[in-house]
């Protein structure tokens, strides 16, 4: 039996009371292991106008590069204080801010490790299906050998790497359309 998938539809403008709960923008507790990092940014449309009704979700491995999931097969250290999921709506100026830890590298295709990255989903009115991107980390030696980064033209690659705002704070803007359009992936 092979069933067809249920089609995607837009999240629309009225999701916040149902989907957004305070605290979901923090992925860490006091006991979580790893290097704390805040990630902030804006979602912008093709006119560089703020998208004030977007939802951003993060999914990431823990500080050792271990996903909290039954299909995780790497011999890595599980952290009971890190689940790896975060969610935030954008505010009236299109801003979002997450508190998390820098993930460790995880297995990639073949034997090559992937550079530390956070998987990102973007939903909004006007997006009929999810957009997916990845946040990579600056000054990370594994970026040079990361298969996903290397498959992207250099001129666009840099917009997948967060920028240092100040120690412990990174900036990652999401541009839906236009000259500085974020690299989106088809998963």
């Amino acid at each position: 039996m092979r069933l067809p998938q249920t089609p995607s539809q837009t999240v629309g403008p009225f999701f916040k009371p149902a989907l957004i709960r305070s605290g979901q923008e923090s992925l860490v507790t006091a006991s979580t292991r790893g290097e704390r990092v805040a990630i902030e940014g804006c979602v912008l449309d093709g006119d560089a106008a703020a998208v004030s009704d977007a939802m951003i979700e993060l999914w990431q491995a823990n500080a050792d590069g271990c996903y909290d999931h039954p299909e995780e097969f790497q011999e890595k250290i599980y952290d009971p204080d890190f689940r790896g999921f975060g969610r935030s709506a954008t505010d009236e100026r299109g801003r979002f801010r997450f508190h998390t830890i820098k993930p460790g590298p995880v297995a990639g295709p073949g034997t090559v490790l992937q550079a530390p990255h956070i998987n990102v989903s973007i939903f909004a009115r006007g997006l009929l299906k999810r957009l997916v991107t990845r946040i990579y980390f600056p000054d990370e030696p594994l970026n040079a050998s990361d298969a996903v980064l290397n498959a992207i033209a250099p001129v666009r690659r840099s917009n997948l790497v967060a920028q240092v705002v100040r120690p412990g704070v990174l900036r990652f803007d999401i541009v839906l359309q236009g000259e500085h359009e974020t690299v989106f992936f088809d998963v």
Partner: protein
Amino acid sequence: MNLPAGYRREIPDGHPPHNAPAYVSTHKRAPRHAPIPLEHTLSEITGPRFERDQLAPGDDDLTHFDGGQALGERIIVTGRVLDQDGRAIPHTMIEIWQANAAGRYAHGEDQHDAPLDPHFAGIGRVITDDHGAYRFMTVKPGAYPWRNHRNAWRPNHIHFSLFGPSFATRLITQMYFPGDPLLALDPIFNSVPDRSARERLIATFDIEVTIPDYALGYRFDFVLRGRAATPPLS
């Protein structure tokens, strides 16, 4: 250990495109570059799980809120969450939201001149059981106008958000009702190019689900992406 199997790709025309000219909000929000295909790794094959979350009593009953009963036609919505091979997806969370029976969301930015219902928040959550089944009670949402084009009205619909077993299976969608004359005119529903795919977004009325003297019953199954190959035995 080897990497578990990835997930099947989207079917062409089975999902909407990003750029759907009839849906005006896509004009400045749809990316212009084609998305770059990503080989599935642990990052896509894993995903958040919520079966450890405790749902609050009443999360599966939207018909009572703040000490009173919501106005409108009570309905049961039930079905299963399956993968493309027909396998049940157990213990996965479904988040639910919708307008009230008058077509108004309990949301500060909904300016539609229809009454709010103090006893309807329009928010629910359920987690599928061992057989992938879910069930909740609500009132049938009303149609409402929107500003997409002159005299634009959204058909009656309920919003759903699902995770499934992985990052790759994440889905947000809308369920519609059979026989709604607004479906033919709705740019969001009609953004799905393939007609049979679109029609999978329409629930089925089921007298067997209907509770006598209380609530009408509808069936709606979700099908999330299946595995690209049989996963290895664990």
